[in-house]
């Protein structure tokens, strides 16, 4: 197992290299010029050219790519073209809000979606099942930003229970931190809850038809034990897989959620950097997201062995 993990961690290196090459090349050929954005719309071509030279954007592709890779290998992701802050500093400033949002959403989604899916499977064909499935369809269909606006309107503007926007760092206290994240986590969690609940229901329905469940019932095992101890454990592998795949959904959704709730996280950093063509920041953040995604996949593979002892690496 340990050897497997080491092998997988080492395998991330070529994956990250391909991602790096891909991201850098895409940005190189994509339209946009940070020098022109900095110079402003009254700038003369000579001004734009001088700024481009000062930023080193006039150098050949291979020189810029080689320099970037060398710096990355030395732990230096470069400096933002606009803010002049190191990209690592900007990521450090933004990582806590995004991590907080994703963790809270994950906890919220799993703790709601899994019981929902289990109950829907148990009460298959009843109004409860239909309600859960209806919610799942709604969760998939309504965009995150619409849910965000509706929640903000009801809970912030009308009821004044929670703030409209912003983020309070965890070190300022648990409740202020939580207060700012409740609405964004619910908004972001909607689609995730829908996804997990549907998969849980489908997998549980399949497991509940198995002979060993019938045997357990015949032996007089309680319904709760059958559902959560016998059935759910055997349905866990596909559920964990979906939770892992859903991380990509969360990363994508965080971009929108952070904009709607003005949370200064990595999602907003990415959008701002793309709009300004702040290449070092875009490259750094995309590389980080790719690395996180690779790690999450590794974690999911390791978790399989906990839920299904037959799986061995």
């Amino acid at each position, binding site marked *: 197992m340990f050897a497997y993990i080491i092998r997988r961690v080492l395998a991330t290196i070529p994956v990250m290299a391909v991602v790096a090459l891909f991201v850098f090349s895409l940005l190189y050929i994509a339209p946009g010029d940070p020098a022109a954005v900095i110079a402003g719309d009254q700038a003369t071509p000579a001004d734009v050219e001088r700024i481009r030279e000062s930023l080193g954007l006039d150098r050949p592709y291979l020189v810029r790519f080689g320099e970037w890779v060398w710096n990355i290998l030395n732990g230096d992701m470069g400096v933002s073209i606009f803010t002049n802050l190191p990209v690592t500093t900007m990521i450090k400033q933004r990582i806590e809000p995004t991590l907080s949002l994703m963790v809270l959403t994950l906890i919220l989604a799993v703790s709601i979606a899994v019981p929902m899916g289990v109950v829907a499977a148990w009460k298959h064909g009843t109004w409860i099942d239909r309600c859960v499935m209806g919610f799942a369809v709604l969760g998939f269909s309504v965009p995150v930003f619409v849910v965000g606006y509706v929640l903000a309107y009801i809970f912030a503007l009308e009821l004044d229970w929670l703030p409209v926007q912003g983020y309070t760092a965890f070190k300022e206290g648990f409740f202020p931190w939580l207060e700012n994240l409740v609405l964004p986590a619910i908004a972001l969690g909607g689609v995730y809850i829908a996804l997990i609940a549907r998969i849980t229901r489908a997998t549980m329905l399949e497991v509940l038809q198995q002979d060993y469940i019938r045997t357990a019932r015949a032996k007089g095992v309680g319904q709760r034990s059958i559902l959560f101890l016998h059935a759910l454990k055997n349905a866990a592998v596909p559920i964990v897989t979906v939770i892992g795949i859903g991380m990509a959904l969360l990363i994508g959704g965080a971009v929108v959620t952070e904009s709607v709730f*003005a949370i200064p996280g990595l999602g907003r950093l990415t959008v701002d950097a793309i709009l300004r063509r702040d290449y070092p920041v875009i490259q750094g953040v995309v590389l980080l997201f790719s690395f996180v995604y690779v790690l999450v996949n590794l974690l999911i593979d390791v978790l399989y062995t906990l839920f299904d002892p037959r799986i061995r690496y």
Partner: protein
Amino acid sequence: MIARRSLLAAGAALSLPAAAQPARVMKFVPQTDLTTLDPIWTISNVARNHGYMVWDTLYGTDAQYRIRPQMAEGHTEEDDGRRVTVTLRAGLKFHDGEAVRAQDAVASIKRWARRSPTGQVLLTYLDEIGAADDRRIVFRLKRRFPQLIGALGLPSSPVCFIMPERLANTDPFQPVREAVGSGPYRFMHSELRSGSFAAWERYAGYSPTPDNATGLTAGPKLVHFDRIEWHTIPDAATASAALMSGEIDWFEQMPPEVSTQLERQRQLVVDVMDTLVFPCSMRMNHLQPPFDNPAIRRALLGAINQEDFMTAIVGPTPARFATDVGFFTPGTPLANDEALAPLKGPRSFEASKRALREAGYNGEPIRLLGTTDIISTSAMAQVAIDFFRKLDVNLDIALSDWGALVQRRNNRGPVAQGGWSVSCFANSGMDFVNPGTHNSLRSDGNAATPGWPSSPALEALRMQFFDAPELPQQQAIARDIQRVAMQDLPYIPLGGYRSLTAHKRSLVDRVKGFAIFWGIKRT
């Protein structure tokens, strides 16, 4: 209904000891994030607004657009105007405690001049600039430059802010790393969270000018807040909700649909940000067909309806836009109505189609560049698309975000090679107040801004303006400029719109112009 959060806030306030009164803090949402601290390196309105908090200027502009002394005590002219000496007020100090010296001003002026349109003209007049002593800045000119003092005091970006010499010696094409000035607020660098938050605190050592002028950037900059916080909220709906819920005090700029919602709130005021409009323009590529032909450019005039373009940006309320706008910002001294007849009166697409045919338009492709991420330019692009479709031209539409557009418009080649034909822009009203600040009027071909118009007559008049000593002469030249510009059309004026701002009703005495943080106070 007593809301839970209000109750908690009230409880927290009551529990404060009497001596620990909260500082007077203003929470402000800027139009966009403060990405860079250097208002000379990048020419953005947020950088300028930040600049006016941190740095002071030698001269300011009052409500009547007259230039008044700020850091300067005054100036003298000798040798038929070829030697100008500006004297600094005594006792000025930077935020780091260092005295403001003439050497700081000299380095700042030199850096600014390389980036400013008027500054670049100044450099052609200048033999030398130096410090006679710690308080006297001496300009030695080849010949008299009547626009000198005005150039040092206009709030058009880039503004001639006075920085410490160690910062001002930075290459103007590289950003300065610190924000240290002698303005009314100190920038709190340690609190900066790029993309999210910036803060300034009142500078106790600020020395206001004794000149009692009032208005835009002139007169004593008396501040009534201990701390200004900028909270970047990219989504207008979220920012307006934050304003309605009382989380912020002032929301700088918003689209019309949001302003309508805010106007219904009794506790808020929605007002025009500036007394000046934002002039808008349709810029054509003068290097490539069909708009390399001035007759084809002029053929468009008969169908241009400025009201259509402005309504698309700010809605139908007439008080929120201006039409019959020429080449200078309405309400400023050089604005005039010379030769504007082709933009007035009944509009006719049929007449314009005929004029296009007579001018020799032969179905050449017209590529329109437009944005999708900026309210004003996106709205104008949509009207322009409709405009060209009604003219039955061979239209090719290329919409993108601003970042891609500013690169694409630098392509001087034909449409077939990725070039462009026409695009719409909006500018700050202060940019179009005179031919010095007005780079879109510049018509010296390849050296001009994208579109690259070439008009020797217009350039000659622009140069005449710089030599004109008094306002009546300048106004006469401005009329001539507009007459020639309406013939050669470096661009077509599309009108001007007023930017809206919203704040709590408890904020009063806001100085109109842009986001200015002196004068304004809480009742």
